């Protein structure tokens, strides 16, 4: 470094020395991130442009994507999975996040007793494995030995019971609600933290102005936690469009009944790895993965450029 600096002064030109330390300090993170994230991502995108012909990988351009959207069979499966995924996301946005916010608001009420207990109890399902959650709910909802039919029976509401996971019209909603049950702790915790970080002066000022109770939450607290709600929405979006595990555990890779619970994740899994007698097709799988990546990328971009910039303006 000293030599470089000397040279700079000797030649009389004010040249900025190359700041090697920046590269050196960034290198570990950049290298590790590239190795485990960027390289596989580019590899997948590349793979989606190839197809196996006579045992050789041959470049076929956009042909896989043409098959995916042009072949009626592939297209039907794809749009079905995409719509199911959107529906799955809507359930989370309509049920998980509002209830999460509500729970957070209740928990942040200083007069509530046993707050720590509720907080922990509601958060616990989030740390459970999908395998346990899927299995437990399959048992709860089982028409043969489940708790759900016997509880409904004991209050005389047996007629309300349906084999939810086996009916085309209910299965996806049931899975969506199971997922909501599992992950409701996350929006609750984030909003709870955001509510706690609201300065007391703001709340006190509101109280001086006569705004208390529900209208305080609605007019003061909610606008102040909007950025957190934005973050939660984007987390929900990314999580839902990558969802796979719960469907796989509860319904199997064919996502029955009649593909009613097929998400992009399970569709990708069947295509990429194959299932039972179906041989895996890594190239078509990569094409689906590429589309999933684009959907998530688009969603995140919309959030970053349209929603978040406005939120910031609102805040200051």
């Amino acid at each position: 470094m000293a030599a470089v600096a000397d040279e700079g002064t000797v030649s009389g030109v004010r040249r900025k020395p190359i700041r090697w330390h920046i590269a050196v300090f960034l290198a570990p993170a950049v290298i590790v991130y590239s190795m485990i994230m960027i390289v596989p991502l580019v590899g997948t995108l590349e793979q989606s442009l190839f197809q196996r012909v006579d045992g050789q990988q041959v470049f076929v351009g956009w042909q896989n994507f043409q098959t995916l959207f042009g072949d009626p069979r592939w297209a039907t499966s794809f749009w079905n999975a995409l719509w199911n995924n959107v529906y799955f996301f809507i359930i989370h946005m309509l049920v998980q996040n509002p209830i999460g916010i509500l729970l957070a608001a209740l928990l942040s009420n200083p007069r509530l007793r046993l707050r720590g207990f509720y907080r922990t109890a509601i958060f616990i399902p989030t740390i459970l494995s999908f395998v346990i959650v899927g299995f437990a709910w399959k048992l709860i909802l089982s028409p043969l030995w489940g708790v759900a039919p016997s509880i409904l029976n004991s209050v005389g509401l047996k007629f309300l019971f349906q084999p939810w996971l086996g009916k085309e019209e209910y299965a996806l909603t049931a899975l969506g609600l199971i997922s909501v049950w599992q992950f409701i702790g996350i929006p609750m915790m984030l909003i709870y933290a955001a509510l706690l970080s609201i300065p007391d002066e703001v709340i006190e000022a509101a109280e001086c102005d006569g705004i208390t109770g529900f209208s305080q939450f609605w007019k003061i607290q909610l606008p102040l936690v909007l950025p957190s709600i934005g973050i939660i929405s984007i987390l929900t979006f990314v999580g839902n469009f990558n969802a796979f595990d719960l469907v796989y555990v509860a319904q199997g890779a064919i996502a029955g009944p009649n593909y009613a619970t097929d998400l992009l994740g399970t569709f990708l899994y069947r295509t990429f790895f194959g299932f039972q007698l179906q041989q895996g097709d890594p190239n078509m799988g990569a094409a689906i993965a590429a589309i999933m990546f684009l959907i998530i990328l688009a969603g995140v971009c919309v959030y970053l450029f349209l929603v978040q910039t406005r939120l910031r303006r609102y805040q200051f």
Partner: protein
Amino acid sequence: MIFNKGLLAATAAMALVTAGGQAFAQDVTLTVESWRNDDLAIWNEKLIPAFEAANPGIKVVFAPTAPTEYNAALNSKLEAGSAGDLITCRPFDASLELFNRGYLAPLTDLEGMANFSPVAKSAWQTDDGKTPFCVPMASVIHGFIYNKDAFDQLGIQVPTTEAEFFAALDKIKADGTYVPLAMGTHDLWEAATMGYQNIGPNYWKGEDGRLALIAGKEKLTDPQWVKPFEELAKWKPYLGDGFEAQTYPDSQNLFTLGRAAIYPAGSWEIAGFEAQAGFKMGAFPPPVENAGDTCYISDHNDIGIGMNAKTAHPEETKKFLNWVASPEFATLYANALPGFFSLSSAPVKMEDPLAQEFVSWRDKCKSTIRSTYAILSRGTPNLENETWTASANVINGTQTPADAAAKLQAGLDSWYKPAGN
């Protein structure tokens, strides 16, 4: 836990046998690759000692992998050249792929192959049927297992025709003590494997229909292929409450707890059911349309064994394969694992009465394999997987038999071109 114990035992067994191998350096040691880690004890205690006693100088090591990892593990071992001498073969395309890539040796001139019928060999040969590459070991047979006590109590005779079958179901349903049929549609494959592939062969005439379908002479929309779906659709009222969400273990438990009268079965259930059920059980083959019709059963090839093309001891390996093809092995294996039947043409004496009942159908009925397994499930959409969904839909009543068949045929047409057409 069973899986863990299996692995532990496998490791221990390998360590032991490796030590043994060093002590008798002149002995040739053959290693068997397999996914049947449940069978480790049977191999080590019964099969291998019997072979080694008859063939001094050859040692055999049974080295199983977990079933879900077997295909991947075997592929990488074969690529690396570190696979065992003997390879347990999955049926149909998975093994054919290994043969085509030169990992499995052709067994055309193996004398023991003469002990097997063409149907038995069909799962492990080239598409033209000329070159076999695995010795058939075992098959599973479909049929119905019933609760004998329930049948006696209700005064029901074992049904042989469709009409009798539905009369029996009606009687069980009217009585109300038992769920007539223990089957669910949640897991999809139950509906296809225990339903469609179980009763189907009677309608499409077993091998005749299956081969005609492959040759393109019959279509899935032909009446003989739609009829099984129509029959399945009639099962709906006899299934348990909420059968749409009933899983495979649910069905098994429902039957072994004595709450259901008839279980559409595969013979692999025998050992488990006999351990669980506290009542007498019997079995009957899929009922035929009219009394006196020829009956057909699904006698599906499940396990074979082949030779690693790169083995260092081809002679000894062939000796072992010939022994696997012998009636002696067939008897040992079938008795150790009731429900997995030897594919050998030689008669095999079995002790288990339920297994005897199943295997006795081979004499009076014609055997076939599952219609979707050979050749027809090579493309996308995959016929076997589509059949799962179609069978479940038909039973759930969300798709008509004709629609289901039309959709399957359209899917098949989209990629399958029969040879010669």
